[in-house]
């Protein structure tokens, strides 16, 4: 869609103007790192932030997501739970926008997931361009996520005195009508283009080949000894999937209310890297080997989703590598597989 602009001095009024109506979530500093949190004012927002510890998916697929409650009286009666909180995710970097965009496809595909879709349809996403690689293991350029291609309502690029604003949806247009925004003139377009060129050249490639080859490389590596070698560095902790913007697997559990006999069925983040993920009653564990679990994750990241949705389930944010105590880094594995 179209390109607009907003002067920097007007941004704070715009964001503060959203707060009475929406729950505004944005990156805030946490010691020497950052996290997406609900903010009370534009002042709290860290505009120059390096990637947050957890991606913003936690506001679309919360760690604990109640599906329905069950009241045994009269039936029993089951009440589905939908979170309709109007929410704005502000300041989302392009890698994370890509992450959300992929979740949108995954959770809408086939039997769609209304708990996600309900939250998503009540959420506006305002992205913000990062200016340089946030970490030395980020490989967003290789994964093609340097600029957003979908999954955002507005997307801001810093042009010095103002932001260029890409408008992604009708809801984004409506947001921009709240004031402060104006149509991009020739000068803004020029600057925006220059900013993009500068961004592109400012990011190094960190995978030694064109990632278009990745699905094939992974297919050929199915029986590679690399998986067994990685086994020696993994604890089955699931940190890598927890911090990944495209991981969404979940477990489903019941919780009882002791006083009333009511119960709640909820889901919570699970991880294919945990030992019991594929274990069944009767003792079989279909992915009991750590190397099989690692391979499964990497194949999901670099092959399965690419084949199904045309996009990788890895946006190159590097979070998994930074969270793994023995440095199992998707980027390194992708590089090693090529040999």
């Amino acid at each position, binding site marked *: 869609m179209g390109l607009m602009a907003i002067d920097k001095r007007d941004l704070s009024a715009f964001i503060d103007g959203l707060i009475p109506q929406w729950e505004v979530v944005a990156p805030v500093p946490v010691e020497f790192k950052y996290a997406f949190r609900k903010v009370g004012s534009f002042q709290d927002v860290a505009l120059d932030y390096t990637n947050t510890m957890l991606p913003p998916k936690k506001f679309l697929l919360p760690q604990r997501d109640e599906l329905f409650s*069950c009241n045994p009286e009269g039936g029993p009666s089951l009440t589905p739970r*939908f979170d309709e909180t109007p929410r704005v995710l502000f300041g989302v970097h392009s890698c994370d926008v890509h992450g959300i965009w992929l979740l949108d496809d995954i959770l809408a595909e086939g039997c769609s997931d209304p708990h996600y879709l309900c939250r998503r349809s009540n959420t506006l996403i305002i992205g913000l361009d990062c200016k340089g690689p946030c970490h030395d293991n980020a490989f967003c350029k290789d994964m093609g996520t340097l600029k957003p291609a979908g999954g955002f309502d507005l997307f801001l690029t810093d042009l010095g005195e103002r932001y260029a604003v890409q408008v992604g949806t009708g809801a984004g247009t409506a947001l921009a009508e709240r004031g402060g925004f104006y149509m991009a003139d020739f000068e803004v377009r020029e600057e925006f283009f220059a900013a993009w060129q500068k961004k592109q050249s400012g990011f190094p490639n960190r995978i030694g080949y064109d990632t278009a080859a990745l699905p094939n490389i992974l297919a050929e590596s199915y029986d590679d000894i690399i998986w067994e070698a990685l086994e020696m560095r993994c604890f089955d902790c699931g940190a890598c999937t927890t911090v990944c913007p495209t991981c969404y697997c979940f477990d*489903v559990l019941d919780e009882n209310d002791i006083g009333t006999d009511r119960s709640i069925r909820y889901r919570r983040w699970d991880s294919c890297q945990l030992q019991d993920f*594929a274990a069944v009653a009767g003792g079989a564990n*279909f*992915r009991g080997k750590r190397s099989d679990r690692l391979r499964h994750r990497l194949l999901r990241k670099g092959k399965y989703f690419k084949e199904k949705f045309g996009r990788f389930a890895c946006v190159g944010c590097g979070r998994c590598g930074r969270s793994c105590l023995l440095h199992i880094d998707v980027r390194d594995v992708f590089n090693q597989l090529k040999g």
Partner: protein
Amino acid sequence: MNHKYVSPYVPRLAELVTARQLTSREKFFEVRLQDGSALGHQPGQFVEVSVFGVGEAPISVSSSPTSQGLGFELCVRDAGSVTHALHELPEGSTIGIRGPYGRGFPLDELKGNDLLFVAGGLGLVPMRSMINYAVDNRADFGRLTLLYGSRTPADLLFADETERWRGTPDFHVATTVDLADGAWTGQVGPITKLFGGVAINPVRTSALVVGPPVMFRFVLKSLLMMGVYESRVYLSLERRMKCGVGKCGHCQIDDVYVCQKGPVFPYTRVRKLPEAL
């Protein structure tokens, strides 16, 4: 609250009409949806059964869609939290049902063929749905053969029904147990032992295999050695399942969601999936 969203995770309410102990570990249930509707399943499909406040477990539908009853039937082994709670429920209790889910046996492809049913242990539960379907549509199928293996004679499921099948025209039934007791006069040993005694016409036969994971390799080998076409072998595979609708990720075999594309797969499909067998 009236919602435009309908959650696939919220079950329909159903009544446990009857609950009957089948063996020391398995119980048989007749279930009826509270809204009176039929389940509308295919043989080989499963449902997610909820015991509220305990959890949910995937269970195969054991009755045939052709059966005359008002509801459908399940046969459940007491294997953990949910299945144990189900065993404890009195008749008349309300449970939750989601589904039917997955792909069952390919009825159209099977039509006109001889059917060889190979069931190990609990595998007879989903197979029973298909067997009764074939018996009820006897004219649609050629010769029927059931090979059924169980741990001990006391573990044999649906003994009365197995006898009834034996009495059906052109239906050959053979059973074996791993561990015999004094009264057992039949075969002893793994299910592959039964293959020697069956007369099938391999080029007309479709083989349907359901059983524990360890069984598949041996059975497949025997089937292919008998000359059954690879393309006419169907397997029902078990995996950990949570959501049943292709979202939670637990059931995957490589990139295939068993809850969506299975549990019944043609062998030709499974052969290309390294994680399958």
